[in-house]
């Protein structure tokens, strides 16, 4: 088996999930200029709700093919997460829109603790296995393997990203979003309802987050109340890497981060003569982030911003 190609493929799968979550961060950042710390928890809720729906259906004896069950789960989870995103914005961010930046950061962190604890109340502290309804048939690609499920994940991610780009670039809603991110006050004068647009941004980002959550759960075959934290952190890293506020940048950053991480985890042992092992996987994300920010502080695709006092 070709290790290099295998790691690239793994990285691609991981990276497209990061990218999907990173879009949620970058959209909110682009419009409001703040880190939505609770986004990772939305991702977690998406996974948890889907698993719950699927287990309810299977235990009720509904005999449908696996992918259809996942789809039904998603159809419940997406609106649930959209509602969650809407509520998060209303409760934690809207009242603090004119406050200094640290205040919404703290509410976001507080809310993220609340959501995690709520998840413990509902689903408990243990890992929840993903119901075994999807087959993991593998496909050979030049000596490396990828499962059909993973191909599905990548394809779905790419189509969602393209869809989002079309919405942002071509529709009226997208134009209003871009206007708001450039200057909310002027956008308001031009007849854009800024509050609606901000809500819409959270709702769209949360829908993408819900789908990403299910992808994470299927890819690792489990979900956990704390899963949103690390994955959210990495996705945010990906967004910064690509240039925060920039949709294309989030996608590029996500995929790049995924590939760097799995290549790093695959080769670190050989490179350091066995001194460091693959459990250092998590540090690559941060090492890369620090390196990028030193040499290109605005991210890979970010625009250079003048210092604003």
């Amino acid at each position, binding site marked *: 088996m070709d290790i290099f190609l295998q790691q690239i493929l793994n990285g691609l799968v991981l990276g497209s999930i990061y990218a999907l979550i990173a879009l949620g961060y970058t959209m909110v950042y682009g419009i409001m200029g703040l880190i939505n710390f609770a986004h990772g928890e939305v991702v977690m809720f998406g996974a948890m709700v889907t698993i719950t729906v699927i287990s309810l259906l299977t235990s009720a004896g509904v005999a449908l093919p696996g992918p259809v069950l996942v789809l039904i789960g998603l159809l419940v989870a997406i609106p649930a997460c959209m509602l969650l995103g809407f509520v998060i914005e209303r*409760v934690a961010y809207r009242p603090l829109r004119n406050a200094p930046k640290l205040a919404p950061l703290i509410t976001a962190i507080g809310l993220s603790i609340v959501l995690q604890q709520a998840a413990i109340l509902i689903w408990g502290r243990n890992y929840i296995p993903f119901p075994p309804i999807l087959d993991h048939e593998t496909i050979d690609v030049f000596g490396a393997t990828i499962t059909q499920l993973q191909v599905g994940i990548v394809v779905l991610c790419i189509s969602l990203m393209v869809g989002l780009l079309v919405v942002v670039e071509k529709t009226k809603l997208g134009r209003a979003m871009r206007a708001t991110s450039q200057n909310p006050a002027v956008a308001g004068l031009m007849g854009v309802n800024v509050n609606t647009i901000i809500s819409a941004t959270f709702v769209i980002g949360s829908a993408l987050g819900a789908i990403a959550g299910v992808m994470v759960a299927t890819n690792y075959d489990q979900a956990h109340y704390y899963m949103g934290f690390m994955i959210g952190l990495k996705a945010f890293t990906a967004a910064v890497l690509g240039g925060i506020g920039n949709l294309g940048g989030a996608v590029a950053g996500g995929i790049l981060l995924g590939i760097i991480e799995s290549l790093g985890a695959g080769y670190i042992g050989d490179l350091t003569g066995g001194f460091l092992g693959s459990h250092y996987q998590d540090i690559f994300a941060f090492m890369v982030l620090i390196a990028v*920010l030193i040499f290109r502080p605005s991210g890979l695709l970010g625009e250079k911003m003048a210092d604003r006092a």
Partner: protein
Amino acid sequence: MNANKKLGVFIASAIVLAVLPFVVGSTLGNSWVRTIDFALLYVMLALGLNIVVGFAGLLDLGFIAFYAVGAYTFALLGSPHFDIHLPFYISIPLGALCAALFGLLLGTPVLKLKGDYLAIVTLGFGEIIRIFMNNLNAPINITNGPQGINLIDPIQIGGFSMGKTIDVAGFALNPVHMYYYLFLLLTVGVVIMAYRLQYSRIGRAWVAMREDQIAASAMGLNIRNIKLLAFALGALSGGVAGGLFASFQGFISPESFGLLESIMILAMVVLGGMGHIPGVILGAVVLTIAPEILRDVIGPLQMHTFGRMIVDPENARMLLFGLAMVIMMLTRPEGMWPSKRRKAEFEDAKKG
């Protein structure tokens, strides 16, 4: 306040602080004295972070890394793990120095970053330190990995160890009492340092940088140096607190140094009143004591009203804590006890 009144307040609070552990110990039990000890540790940490976040305006989400460096330095130099047993007056300063060096190590690459970029890099830095502590047990065992380091030496002065209960004139002096006085002494030192810094040339330079970096550098301030100094001095107090924590606890593991801890300390600074020393102290004390009170209250309350446990107390405690953070920020974003300047700024912002 005139000088006499000030002196009165000073003497009164000195007496209260001096007898506090015995009053609390005999009425509520020694576990509460322990909580107060932790509150003092957190005061030191929060004041350290306040230098970075409050004075210099640099958002640091990885502050716990310096605490960890201080704690691990102390533990490695005073435990059976390497069988080195250095006295505390060497290992605590060494730990503080190491932490300050790590502060510079973090500060140097992030000099040009600000705001959220800085926040996320410092967060990543904290995670990197934690991951290394978790994994540096192979191939050479340095940190003993997730198991952590055990049997750390208590603080010893001459032949007198603070790890054992001793009898002083019929009083049983527990380790928690002795550590209380040690922590109190050092906390007072850190408070004095913070005040002296605030009103010094450096402190004013930090405020100038926080308010407008470009204007500050046009006035001839060396932004690089004062930024690095903020990181190093903040890290220094984190390192001292870390060393004390290791000796007090006798055991450390990477688990104690997660992101949640960094967030807790930041919450103490912000909820207390960023940049305002009394506010930060209040924030640290409230956020240490309140969760412990909740721990004691939630379980019995549920048993009393429902006759059984409905919500796991630990769960309910964190839930309330998160809610309190949200509600506090929504109703009083300037913090519990803000400085006059910050309060005025918030009032201006409200008027829009």
